[in-house]
C-alpha cells in the first residue's frame, strides 16, 4: 500500500485507481479527502450549534418560561459556545488549510499525511465527547459556560460526568489543533514548489501559518489548566479551589491565554479567505501584500498579550497594560481594511456570490471591530462586559465575520473541491437571508446590553426594556435558519443537477487554479513557473502587466 512520495511534477508513475466507499474515507491519508472530511464534520457541528441557538432564542423570545428548564438552558449555551468555537469555526479553518495549503504551495500532500488523519480523528473523537458531555451524561450535563470558570466548574458546584467529558473532549480537540499546526508549518516551510518564496505565498497560506503558530502557543497552557481542573474534580486537587488554597484567577489567566489567541485562530483563516477572493473578483493584485503579511504577523504577536481584557472587571489584573495592547491590535486590523479597499480601487468588480459574502464579512466585521475598540477601554467594560452588548460584539466578529467568510470560502472553493458549481441565484438568496437574519438577530442585542441584560440568563423580567429587542432577535434567528436551509438545498441541488465548473471558473490567482477540479491524487501533473504571488494568473495572462 505504501508509495514513494515525490515532489511535483512527478514522473508519470502508474497510479492506483482512486478508491471510494466508506473504508477509503475512514482510512484515507490524502490531504484533500481529510480536508473535505474536516469541513463537512465542522459544518455538521455548525448545524448542531445552530439548532441549540434557535432553542435559546425561542426561550428568550418573550419574558417568562416557555420551552426548556433552567438546567437545560445552561447546558444549551455551554455546548453552543463550545461547539461553535472549538468544533465549527476553528476546525473548518483547519479543513480549508488541509485542502488548500498543499495545492497553494505546489506540494503533493501535507508533510505528515498520517499525522493529518490522526488529527482529524482526534477532532472527531473530541467533538463526540463534547456533545456527549451535554446530552448523554449521568448526573447532569456540562452547564458551566464554555469558559468553565472555576470554582463553578469544580466538582462541588458542577457534579456529574458532563464537565469531565467536556474537559476530555476539549483536550482531544486541542491535540488535533497542535498536530494540524505542526503539519501546516512543516508543509509551508519545507514543501513549497520551486520559486514559491515565503514572500510569494498566497495570503490564505500566510494566514494559516500565523494561525498554526498561535495554536501552538495558546493551546498547551489551556490544556494544562483543563488537566489541573480534572485533577481538582476527580482526584482531590485544589489548584483552583479558593477554599483549598487555590486561586480561581490563575485559571482565568491560563484559560484566556488560550481564549484570546483563539479568537484570532478563528478569524485569521477568514481574513485569508477574503483576501484571496477580493482581488480575484476585482481583477487586480492584492494591494500592499507585504504590509498585509506584516499586519497578520503583528495581529498574531499582539494577540498573545491581550488575554486579560476578558478580566477587566475582576479588579485583579493590570487593566492599563491590557487596554493598551488591545487598542494596539486594532491598528493592524485597520490596515487590513485599507488593503481590501485598495484591492478594489480602480478594479473591475464582479459581484459573484463569494464576493458578496466577502462584502458581508467586511460590513459585519467592521462593527465587531469598532465595538471591540470600545471594549478595550476598561471603564466601558465595567458597563458592557458580560452583557448582551458583549454577546452582540463577538457574534459580529465570529458569526458576521468568520462565518460569512467561511460561506465565501465554500462558494469560492466548492467548484475546485467537487468540480461542480453552486447556484449563483440560490447563493444570492442565501446571502440575503443570512445577512438580513444576522443583523436582525444581533443588532438588537447591542441595545439589550446597554439596557442591562446580562448574558447567560434563561429568563428576564418584563418592563426593563428587554422585550422588544429580544423578540426581534428571535425573529432574526428564524431568518438565519431559513438561510442555512436554503444553503443546504443548494448543496443538494448541486449534487443532483451538476453544473461542471472547469479548472478555473473564477479566474483565480493561486496555484490550486492551475490544476484540475477536483485535483488528481498528488495534486499536480505539471507546475507553472512561479514568478509572483499570482502564478495561475501569470500562466493565463502571459505578457500581461504584473
Amino acid at each position: 500500500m505504501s508509495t514513494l512520495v515525490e515532489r511535483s511534477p512527478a514522473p508519470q508513475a502508474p497510479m492506483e485507481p482512486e478508491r471510494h466507499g466508506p473504508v477509503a474515507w475512514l482510512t484515507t491519508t490524502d490531504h484533500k479527502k481529510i480536508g473535505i472530511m474536516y469541513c463537512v464534520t465542522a459544518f455538521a457541528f455548525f448545524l448542531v450549534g445552530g439548532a441549540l441557538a434557535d432553542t435559546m432564542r425561542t426561550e428568550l423570545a418573550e419574558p417568562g418560561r416557555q420551552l426548556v428548564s433552567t438546567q437545560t438552558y445552561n447546558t444549551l449555551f455551554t455546548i453552543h459556545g463550545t461547539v461553535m468555537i472549538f468544533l465549527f469555526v476553528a476546525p473548518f479553518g483547519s479543513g480549508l488549510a488541509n485542502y488548500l495549503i498543499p495545492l497553494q504551495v505546489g506540494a503533493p500532500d501535507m508533510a505528515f499525511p498520517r499525522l493529518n488523519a490522526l488529527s482529524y480523528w482526534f477532532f472527531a473523537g473530541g467533538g463526540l465527547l463534547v456533545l456527549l458531555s451535554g446530552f448523554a451524561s449521568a448526573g447532569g450535563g456540562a452547564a458551566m459556560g464554555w469558559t468553565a470558570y472555576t470554582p463553578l466548574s469544580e466538582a462541588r458546584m458542577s457534579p456529574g460526568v458532563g464537565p469531565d467529558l467536556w474537559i476530555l473532549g476539549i483536550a482531544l480537540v486541542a491535540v488535533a489543533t497542535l498536530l494540524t499546526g505542526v503539519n501546516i508549518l512543516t508543509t509551508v516551510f519545507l514543501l513549497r514548489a520551486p520559486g514559491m518564496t515565503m514572500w510569494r505565498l498566497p495570503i490564505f497560506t500566510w494566514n494559516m501559518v500565523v494561525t498554526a503558530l498561535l495554536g501552538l502557543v495558546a493551546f498547551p497552557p489551556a490544556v494544562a489548566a483543563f488537566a489541573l481542573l480534572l485533577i481538582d474534580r476527580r482526584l482531590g486537587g485544589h489548584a483552583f479551589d479558593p477554599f483549598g488554597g487555590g486561586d480561581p484567577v490563575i485559571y482565568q489567566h491560563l484559560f484566556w491565554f488560550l481564549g484570546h489567541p483563539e479568537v484570532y485562530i478563528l478569524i485569521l483563516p477568514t481574513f485569508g479567505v477574503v483576501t484571496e477572493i477580493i482581488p480575484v473578483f476585482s481583477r487586480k493584485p492584492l494591494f500592499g501584500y507585504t504590509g498585509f503579511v506584516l499586519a497578520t504577523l503583528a495581529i498574531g504577536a499582539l494577540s498573545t498579550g491581550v488575554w486579560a481584557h476578558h478580566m477587566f472587571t475582576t479588579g485583579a489584573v493590570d487593566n492599563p497594560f491590557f487596554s493598551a495592547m488591545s487598542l494596539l491590535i486594532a491598528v493592524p486590523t485597520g490596515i487590513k481594511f485599507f488593503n481590501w479597499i485598495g484591492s478594489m480601487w480602480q478594479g473591475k468588480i464582479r459581484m459573484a456570490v463569494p464576493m458578496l459574502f466577502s462584502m458581508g464579512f467586511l460590513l459585519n466585521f467592521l462593527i465587531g471591530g469598532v465595538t471591540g475598540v470600545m471594549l478595550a477601554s476598561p471603564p466601558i467594560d465595567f458597563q458592557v462586559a458580560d452583557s448582551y452588548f458583549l454577546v452582540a460584539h463577538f457574534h459580529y466578529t465570529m458569526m458576521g465575520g468568520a462565518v460569512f467568510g467561511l460561506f465565501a470560502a465554500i462558494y469560492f472553493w466548492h467548484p475546485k473541491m467537487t468540480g461542480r458549481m453552486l447556484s449563483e441565484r440560490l447563493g444570492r438568496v442565501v446571502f440575503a437571508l443570512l445577512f438580513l437574519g444576522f443583523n436582525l438577530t444581533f443588532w438588537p442585542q447591542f441595545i439589550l446590553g446597554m439596557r442591562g441584560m446580562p448574558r447567560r440568563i434563561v429568563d428576564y423580567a418584563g418592563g426593563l426594556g428587554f422585550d422588544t429587542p429580544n423578540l426581534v432577535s428571535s425573529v432574526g434567528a428564524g431568518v438565519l435558519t431559513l438561510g442555512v436551509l436554503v444553503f443546504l438545498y443548494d448543496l443538494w441541488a448541486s449534487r443532483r443537477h451538476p453544473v461542471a465548473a472547469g479548472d478555473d471558473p473564477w479566474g483565480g490567482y493561486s496555484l490550486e487554479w492551475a490544476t484540475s477540479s477536483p485535483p488528481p491524487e498528488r495534486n499536480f501533473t505539471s507546475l507553472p513557473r512561479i514568478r509572483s504571488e499570482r502564478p495561475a494568473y501569470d500562466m493565463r495572462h502571459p505578457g500581461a502587466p504584473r
Partner: protein
Amino acid sequence: MRTISRLLWVISGFGLGVGTLYWFLTYEATGAVLLWFFGLMPMIVALWMWRRGLVSAHLAEDEPEADPSASAGEVVGSFPLMSAWPIIAVLGVVMAGASLVYGLILLAPGIALLGYAIYGLMRESRH
C-alpha cells in the same frame, strides 16, 4: 530558510520582550511565565536550524528564478495512501479517556488499542 529563521527569532524576541515588560509592570507571575515560554518555544526551532546550518541552506523554493523542474521527482518520503491506524489510535484514546468518567474497566482495552495502533503505525512506516 533565512526568512523562516528570521521570523522565528522575531517572534521569540517579541515574546521575551513583552513578557519582561509585563513582569516589570505588574509583577504577576502567571502571565509573565506564559509570555516567556511563548518566547522560548520558537527559539528552540530557530537554534536548531542555526546549529544544523539550515539558515543559509539553498533551496529551490527560496530561489525567485527557480524552474518548476528544479525539485521535480525529489523523494520526500514514503507514505501509505491509506492507513487505518490513526482512527484506531483515537478510538483507544477516547476509550481510555472515557474510563476516567465511566469506570476504569475501559482503561485497559483503551490503552491496549492505542499501543496496538502505535505499533501498527511504526511497522507501516518501515517500508
